[in-house]
């Protein structure tokens, strides 16, 4: 499995664990479909968003302090992976 796929799977596992989505198989979450608009197999709300911001910090050591940027970064698994990759490299 390449690094990018591995990271995306970790993100999906993080989403499922953080939000206690016990009936969701992480691999079923679609990488490029929005997580907040009902187009993916899960639909998140703004409270879930804050939980994910904190989970990204805990799991990947990457801070997401700007709430406006967070809306874009948390949009899909792909956008989260891009953000985490860029910020791990930067640090």
């Amino acid at each position: 499995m390449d690094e990018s796929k591995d990271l995306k799977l970790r993100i999906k596992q993080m989403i499922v664990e953080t939000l206690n989505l016990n009936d969701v198989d992480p691999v079923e979450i679609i990488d490029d479909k929005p997580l907040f608009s009902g187009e993916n197999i899960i639909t998140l709300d703004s409270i879930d968003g804050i939980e994910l911001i904190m989970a990204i910090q805990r799991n990947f050591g990457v801070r997401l302090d700007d709430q406006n940027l967070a809306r874009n970064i948390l949009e899909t698994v792909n956008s989260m992976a891009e953000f985490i990759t860029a910020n791990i490299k930067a640090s």
Partner: protein
Amino acid sequence: MDKVIPFEHKMSAHCETGTLSSQLAFHGLELSESLIFGIGSGIFFGYFNNSKFPFPTFIVRNKPGQIRKNLTKRLGIKFTSETFKTAEQAQNKLDVLLEKGIPPATQVDFFFMDYLPQYLRVHINVHFINVVGKTNGNYLISDCYYPKIVELKAESLEKGRFAGGSMAPKGFLFYPSFIPKEFDYEKAVRKGIKKACFNMLKIPIPFLGIKGMRKFADHITEWPKLAMDSEDLSHQVSKINILLEDQGTGGAGFRFMYATFLKQAAEILKKPELIDFSKRMMENGDKWREISLKAARMGRDRDLSVEKLKEVGDLIRERADVEELFFKELSKAVK
């Protein structure tokens, strides 16, 4: 009139500081949002429980417009600003400025910015945007909450600029009219920090600064008596999250932005010890975010017993203790 002003669009954490930053950049001065926030002594706290408000509320930053005024005091940057009696006068002035190649910032009710997703659009009268052109009768808007410059119908802009209610915009617009060639950043940063410390520690009003946090912590258990019903209480508790995280705060009630400022201040004042203050403020922000999340969950799950509210109050009191010590030590560090 068709006019497109070459304006560099930037997203930012907060509309007032973001708009100021991009306005200044247009006029050739690069000043980051966090530096503007810090020099402008933006960090604050106030808890309001009086007849002016239908329900107790709080603020986590100083009043709108104060950051801009503090920039004028501390850096000598002058702004031209104006409000209008009628929407027609306001639009005429806007068109005249655009024709001259001046893209002003204007105050609007967030709700009418219909390029934003529906779920974000709530009535907030103090949102700032830049108007950077006009094409086919539509205005070109640089809104720091939106990823790119976007068109807005003239009638939507008019509704936004002339929304009624508390803090009504009255077409308010502003733009920099004088920027000095040189600045004493060291003096400005020092003054900005000192004033912030004063506001948090010594302002002689019992519901502002650290005193306001403690008042909030003590009073939150009274909220069930003040709410109309459990639905209202749930809404009010959820609003703690909205005010700390969503309403243009950049997250954690501006504490993260102040942490970034302190990092910059360490360099400007040549005081590496401020890096440690920055880290402490970042950790403090994390704790405010936890309060925000706890309140949001309680609101969502209708978990609103007095015991639960007391837990939130205890967490806020803990923040008051931490911030009191923090600002006392910060004040000494910049003497």
